[in-house]
């Protein structure tokens, strides 16, 4: 019997709570990578020096310290932050740091699914597609936007499908998510060679044929766990820092977050983040941006008992040990 080659880079779990450590170990253990559990950042630093980990999974309280911020800022060490039982205020300070790429905030069993899929995506370096978040065999609907003024027609079509699927009030969130993501892909994504946004000043309700790179696709599907909505453009102009700045607008009620002098209002991505349970961005700079919003259909908000939503920003250009 041949033995497969094991990747020596471990998954390093840094969490003060032993029970959480063990739970996370069980969830990521299925990768069959070595899993190292430590209680604090000092021990984590020792382990990092010994063998650079493939991924660090760390408690959100720890990344508030100076040591923790350094850990997050080191882009060569992918860092996934666990944040449970927290309020939106806590999230704002994390996002302001501008270094966060993966935040998992939902309680079990969502955490198990989100964590497992996130680790698998990083392990396999296979980032794109809503299929990864759904059970096998689910039908996926795909609609293509070939003119900018078809946006609302596509959103309506999706809304009707979601209603027919018996998802009730979640159709409200679904239509808003799809509308904002499509708007972003049609008007904010297009850039010229110098990186200047070429369509952000366009009339948002006008007609504009979309061909080649301008074509935008909307895909959606629902299994017994999630309603997943995916929008993809072919510019790949969205970056992590912009995403974090936009998401931060969802975490507070500060004044003047709405842009008054531009065509877009500047709160589209924040609106999406505030309307779903998990928001994923798959970035291939210069080629495509794919946003996937997941709305949990098993649990009502009060049952989840968590006001913070998970997100992940995956990039094909992130280095891995």
């Amino acid at each position, binding site marked *: 019997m041949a033995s497969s080659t094991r990747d020596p880079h471990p998954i390093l779990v840094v969490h003060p709570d032993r029970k959480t450590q063990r739970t996370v170990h069980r969830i990521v253990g299925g990768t069959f990578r070595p899993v190292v559990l430590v209680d604090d950042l000092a021990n984590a630093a020792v382990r990092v020096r010994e063998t650079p980990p493939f991924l660090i999974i760390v408690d959100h309280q720890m990344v508030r310290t100076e040591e923790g911020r350094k850990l997050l800022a080191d882009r060569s060490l992918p860092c996934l932050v666990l944040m449970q039982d927290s309020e939106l205020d806590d999230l704002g300070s994390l996002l302001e740091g501008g270094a966060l790429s993966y935040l998992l905030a939902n309680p079990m069993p969502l955490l198990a699914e989100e964590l497992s899929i996130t680790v698998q995506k990083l392990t396999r370096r296979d980032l794109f597609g809503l299929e990864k978040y759904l059970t096998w065999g689910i039908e996926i609907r795909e609609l293509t936007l070939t003119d900018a003024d078809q946006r609302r027609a596509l959103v309506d079509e999706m809304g009707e499908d979601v209603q027919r699927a018996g998802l*009730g*009030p979640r159709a409200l969130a679904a239509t808003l998510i799809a509308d*904002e993501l499509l708007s972003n892909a049609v008007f904010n994504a297009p850039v010229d060679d110098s990186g200047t946004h070429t369509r952000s000043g366009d009339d*948002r*309700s006008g007609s504009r044929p979309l061909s080649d790179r301008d074509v935008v696709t909307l895909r959606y599907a629902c299994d017994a766990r999630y309603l997943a909505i995916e929008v993809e453009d072919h510019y790949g102009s969205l970056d992590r820092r912009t995403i974090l700045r936009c998401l931060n607008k969802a975490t507070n009620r500060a004044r003047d977050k709405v*842009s*008054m002098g531009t065509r877009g209002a500047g709160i589209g991505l924040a609106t999406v983040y*505030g309307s779903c349970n998990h928001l994923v961005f798959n970035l291939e700079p210069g080629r495509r941006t794919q946003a996937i919003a997941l709305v949990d259909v098993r649990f009502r908000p*009060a049952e989840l008992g968590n006001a913070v939503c998970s997100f992940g920003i995956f990039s094909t250009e992130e280095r891995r040990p």
Partner: protein
Amino acid sequence: MSSASASSKVRTRAAVSSTPAGDLLTIGGDIDDSTSLTPFVAQLKRSPIIDLGDVGFINSVGVREWITLLGELAQRGLRVTLRNVSEPMVRQMTMVIEARGDAAVESFYAPYACDACGDERALLLQVDLHKDALEAHKPPPLPCPSCGSEADFDEFPNRYLSFLS
């Protein structure tokens, strides 16, 4: 004046009428990129009341149009009362503080769920009637319209009710 189809793409319904309590602007449908609400400002001269019960959708660009309307009414020194604020409107008001502005909220819809029959829908809460409970962020159970059992508030009170504060 009512405006429903200045263009076939306009998805907002809006009309002004006069009531004993003040001038009433009733808005329904979608508030989005095609919506223009400021033309109604000139007709809202006396204690404006805005009924939002039939607003089923409002996107980020629609929010900006909405806060422009509120801002222009405030500039004229008018104190606006919001009636039957729909769930999509409340959700935007929880994130964008100017989306409520200085307007008084008379009543609003909130998500409720019934454990007995599984029904999920938005139910109307009168702010005056439930003042204490809402201030304590403990919205009351309400009768389920589907089976008559008790339906419970189905959101995080701290988040959903933040627009009232």
